[in-house]
């Protein structure tokens, strides 16, 4: 018996419908094509429900609903919107176990992460933006004695959002909370690998949200994502995914002259300076855990610390210690609380990771531990499991340059501060980084020198609301997870007012 009963079994906290339609204008709407696709749990590799296969006509229907709702929703007070966001948070809190089980079943992540990290963060995110929108004010600039510039925030109107599969609920909430807080209506397309978690959440909170404010259209990227991203009826598009699609989305946005926010991944360095091993104390233990964070969410995190940079002086000792820590990772049924690493989210993701384990070896990288698919037997035999893997090599290898999006870290050594920065910045991406040292001067200089939007310093993989998250370089455009995100979902209206009774004298 697992700690939480699998969906589909009697007594499970999460009960899925056999079939999910689109969620448009506050109700389920059948796909116009009449077609559905199967939704598989990566835990066992088996189908557990069907999902509407959306197309351009469905996107248009959702846009109709969003446009019908937008004028009234955009005029609600910040107070009203904040109350709604707080109610959503309270409802989620009351149902946290059910939501966590649903997300784990669909995505494969261990329940300890969905229950104690992902869903609590999503809850807090609604509360953060409830607070942020209440506290937001326009401004009045006294330009001269008779002239005042007033600045008002206005919603954009109707926005499109395309959600990734690695955190089906948290990533949706990162985008939804600021958008609706700012008074926008949303058409959201979940990833086709994890289309149902957000419906599960919506079912719990549907009575709290006015019809048409949040609309969900499922389907494949090419059939549903593209018509959404290229529609002239959206005022903005937000996307998390990879670089080719990111460029295509910018291309479509350029045709409509609308803004985009993009989060396109990374190849984050996690840097361990020699002084971390100066003592065998709690901090050293924390650093070992910090290295092992590459296994969080099976490595399916845009900021996975997938490059381990260890200073030469401590290289052998540190690598030995983190290898032992990595070997202690417990893989197992994702619904067991003691499981540390669950299933990769999909079969194609599994295949891609295996292809990188292959090219890593071919390029001459050494497997320190792992390096194989994991067969966990029993009902999990059909699931998508990979051993946590440490490669040793150099930064020019492709496993050091590409986001594998699996539980794989590529380790190399560096000699001194400058060498560490050189390796850290030798990448196309700049989303996250980690710096570990007992010397705060070193930490500060490293943090400022690394070309990445988020530098965790003596910590890793924390995502509190209030800390801006987003990329440098090819990692994207825009910042999430912070009140500045409101700006990505608002227009600035300037009223420039003259209080002078007298003419200029020009005409």
């Amino acid at each position, binding site marked *: 018996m697992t700690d939480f009963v699998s969906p589909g079994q009697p007594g499970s906290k999460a009960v899925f419908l056999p079939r999910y339609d689109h969620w448009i204008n506050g109700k389920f709407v059948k796909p116009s094509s009449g077609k559905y696709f199967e939704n598989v749990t990566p835990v066992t590799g088996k189908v557990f429900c069907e999902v509407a296969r959306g197309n351009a006509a469905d996107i248009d229907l959702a846009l109709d609903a969003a446009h019908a709702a937008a004028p009234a929703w955009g005029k609600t007070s910040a107070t009203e919107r904040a109350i709604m966001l707080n109610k959503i948070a309270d409802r989620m809190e009351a149902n946290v176990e059910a939501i966590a089980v649903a997300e784990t079943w669909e995505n494969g992540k261990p329940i300890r992460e969905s229950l104690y990290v992902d869903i609590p963060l999503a809850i807090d995110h609604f509360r953060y933006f409830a607070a942020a929108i209440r506290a937001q004010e326009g401004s009045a600039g006294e330009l001269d004695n008779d002239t005042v510039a007033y600045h008002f925030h206005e919603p954009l109107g109707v926005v499109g959002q395309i959600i990734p599969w690695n955190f089906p609920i948290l990533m949706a909430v990162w985008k939804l909370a600021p958008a609706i807080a700012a008074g926008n209506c949303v058409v959201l397309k979940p990833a086709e690998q994890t289309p149902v978690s957000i419906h599960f959440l919506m079912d719990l909170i549907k009575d709290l949200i006015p019809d048409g404010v949040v609309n969900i259209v499922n389907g*494949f990227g090419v059939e549903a994502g593209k018509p959404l991203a290229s529609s002239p009826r959206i005022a903005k598009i937000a996307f998390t*995914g990879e670089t080719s699609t990111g460029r295509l989305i910018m291309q479509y946005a350029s045709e409509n002259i609308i803004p985009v926010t993009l989060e396109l991944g990374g190849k984050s360095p996690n840097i361990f300076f020699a002084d971390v091993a100066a003592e065998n104390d709690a901090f050293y233990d924390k650093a070992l855990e910090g290295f092992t964070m590459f296994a969080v969410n099976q490595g399916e995190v845009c900021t996975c610390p997938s490059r381990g940079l260890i200073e030469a002086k401590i290289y052998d000792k540190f690598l030995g210690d983190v290898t032992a820590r990595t070997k202690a990772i417990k893989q197992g049924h994702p619904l067991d609380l003691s499981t540390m690493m669950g299933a990769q989210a999909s079969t194609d993701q599994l295949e891609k990771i295996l292809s990188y384990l292959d090219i890593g070896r071919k390029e001459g990288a050494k497997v320190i531990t792992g390096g194989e698919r994991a067969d966990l037997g029993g009902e999990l035999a059909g699931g998508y499991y990979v051993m946590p893997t440490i490669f040793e090599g150099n930064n020019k290898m492709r496993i050091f*340059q590409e986001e594998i999006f699996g539980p794989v870290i590529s380790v190399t050594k560096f000699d001194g501060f400058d060498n560490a920065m050189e390796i850290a910045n030798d990448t*196309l991406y700049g989303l996250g980084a980690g710096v570990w040292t007992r010397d705060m001067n070193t930490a500060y200089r490293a943090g400022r020198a690394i070309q990445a939007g988020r530098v965790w310093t003596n910590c890793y993989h924390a995502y509190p609301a209030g800390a801006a998250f987003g990329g440098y370089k090819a990692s994207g455009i825009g910042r999430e997870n912070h009140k500045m995100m409101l700006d990505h979902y608002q227009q600035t209206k300037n009223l420039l007012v003259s209080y002078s009774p007298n003419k200029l004298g020009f005409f």
Partner: protein
Amino acid sequence: MEIPSRVDYTEAAAEMLRELTAINGPLMFHQSGGCCDGSSPMCYLEGEFRVGAQDVLVGEFVIKGIEKPIKVWMSAPQFEYWKHTHLTIDLVDGRGGGFSLEAPEGKRFLTRSRLFTDGEWEILESSPVSRGA
């Protein structure tokens, strides 16, 4: 001296490309990088993805039963990190991947890789690649 190819395809990929061509018309690939579905070859309608001076033409597939060669592109900065490896576009079971055309068929294109041999590399190192503009 013949220039070795930088990118090939498997028969499974060719069969899917024939199907997709029949449904959609002429095709292209752009090799992706980055998050989630990254590092996957994205298959688009020819011309759907605007290539430019920052894209490298990695190769062209001439496939029996498909009239127009299918060009395979990659962003130039990414190519700098990939150029020492030979690529093979394969097909596996799967779903999704950006706006790639095969997703609704329950399949996924996948890039497999190997290092070039010394002999291949000697020729390729001195062979220029063309760009999208």
